[in-house]
């Protein structure tokens, strides 16, 4: 066996590796390529005999904005997922600071519940929250179902435990000495948290923020029940648009796929920008322990 530049870590022989990468790349790319192709196919030709359209219908990307209220969906998703994740991260930093710096009764049950809560099926929380919202609005005569607030509250049910858990592991890795120096200089605990800790855990906060945001962005469950036509998120708009194509004379599949591309693109771009942070942040230190 030639030992010239062979990496000891190499397990797959190069030819096998190339074949495996090619196979996985094809697996990944076929549905994506098909979606992109359909998104520029005229609606009339989507069901036709040829896969390649007679002409590129880039107009799909323009028409779809008036077919579905995509712009409204985009801004609703941005508002709801954005506010929920900002609230989650702010509360999470406060809680994580206390969890990692002090010992108090109920600390361990709190940590356990953070993990336990992540196994609770979301639909199980939606049911009572919907019943609560409905009875509150019947009793107090103000609208709750269909408002931003109602959806934001439900998004916190997954964003808050997750963000807290993440921040606990980030704050736990910041040595105490740094803030003690500040405390010796006469800073209060809060000043130490704000001036010393927060700048250090900023990458962690970004990870928590991005993940909470993306989970909210892809939610269909809560939003499909709790939004009204004005507050509908992008995901629900598309789901409704898709199921409306079923009985129609001419299904607008080209535009539907165009809209799908537009909803996935910001997420994929966001991920590419933060790729290093996101993957590294979540798994680094993680598995080594």
């Amino acid at each position, binding site marked *: 066996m030639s030992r010239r530049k062979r990496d000891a870590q190499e397990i797959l022989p190069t030819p096998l590796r190339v074949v495996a990468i090619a196979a996985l790349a094809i697996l990944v790319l076929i549905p994506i390529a098909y979606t992109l192709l359909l998104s520029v196919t005229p609606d009339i030709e989507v069901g036709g005999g040829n896969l390649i359209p007679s002409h590129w219908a880039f107009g799909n990307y323009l028409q779809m904005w008036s077919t579905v209220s995509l712009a409204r969906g985009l801004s609703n998703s941005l508002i709801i997922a954005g506010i929920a994740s900002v609230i989650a991260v702010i509360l999470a930093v406060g809680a994580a600071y206390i969890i990692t710096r*002090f010992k108090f009764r109920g600390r361990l049950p709190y*940590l356990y519940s953070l993990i336990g809560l*992540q196994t*609770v099926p979301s639909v199980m929380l939606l049911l*009572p929250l919907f019943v609560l919202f409905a009875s509150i609005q019947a009793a107090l005569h103000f609208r709750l179902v269909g408002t931003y607030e109602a959806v934001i509250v439900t998004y916190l049910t997954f964003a808050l435990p997750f963000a807290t858990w993440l921040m606990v592991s980030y704050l*736990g890795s910041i040595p105490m000495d740094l803030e003690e120096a500040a405390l010796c200089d006469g800073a209060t605990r809060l000043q130490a948290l704000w001036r010393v800790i927060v700048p250090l855990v900023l990458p962690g906060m970004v990870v928590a923020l991005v993940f909470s945001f993306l989970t909210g962005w892809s939610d269909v469950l809560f939003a499909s029940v709790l939004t009204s036509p004005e507050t509908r998120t992008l995901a629900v708009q*598309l*789901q409704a648009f898709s199921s409306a194509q079923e009985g129609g004379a001419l299904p607008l599949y080209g535009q539907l796929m165009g809209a799908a591309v537009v909803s996935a693109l910001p997420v*994929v771009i966001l991920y590419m920008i933060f790729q290093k942070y996101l993957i590294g942040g979540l798994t680094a230190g993680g598995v080594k322990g």
Partner: protein
Amino acid sequence: MSIQPIPETVPAPTLVLRPERGRRGIFGGRPIWLIWPSITLLVVIIGIPLLIAIYISFLNLDQYTLRSWIQAPWVGLGNYVTALTAGNVIGASALTSLGVSLAFSLLTTLIITPIGILAALTVNTRYRGRTLVRTLYLVPYVIPTFVTALVWRQMFLNGTGLVDRFLAAIHVANINTYWLLGPNSFWAMVIADVWASWAFIYIMVLAGLQSITHEVYEAADVDGASSWQKLTRIVLPQLRHILALALLLSTLYHFNNFTLPFVMFGTPPPLQADVLPLNIYVSSFQLFNFGLGGAMSVITLIIMLIPGFVYIRALRLGEVTAS
């Protein structure tokens, strides 16, 4: 599958660095109040609703009694009996749905595991273009689930979708094969989910691979181990803990997956794809039988407690923090 965060892989580090006991440390008061907003919110939006869900499961609650749900008629275990035997009028029974969910989550996990391991092995060593390959692998994983579902719905469309076209072209199946209706729908759901989620195993295995020290591989080389021996004798045994965690989390996640079947099949879904979360959703929010939905939720929760408990035990929070 959209970005499914893997917070759980971040282990509890030294959770208390230098705990201060007593009411006042050297540095004055403890701003314990910082944790109160979080605790209060968790109790109000998760704790109390959980209890209400359990209460609702014993009520005959529909859209008419919803206004004053506290006074809704008490039916005891009636909803549970209905859930397990009959289900809602248009869907499967909870027992059938449970079977579908279990088969779906276990089968998907079983299929994605070898794919994820293989993918991790292809990017374990440095070579030109590795970053590109790594990025590519993660694309299906970061696409939001509802988009994945829309895409695969299109792929599986009867007669015109890519899958039917392809199968007809290679003379395996009739071009008019139905994937979004009937027995095939289960497989359509599994295939779409495999496509979206294999990168989860890949990320976990890759992280595990990076924690194996270089010396171990070199020692194996010196001993003249073959690739296969390295894989089965060194890599897999070292990965068994993280792999076990990955399998558990993957099963949990797939079991709770609502968006994929909901967007792919619409409602009511085909019986073969009527997973438990979807069944609860249809029972509660489309047939307005909240009691039945509640009973099915409680059944789900009880089942989720088993892997949940194993998971919490595996994390060994207690041991870490006991020091």
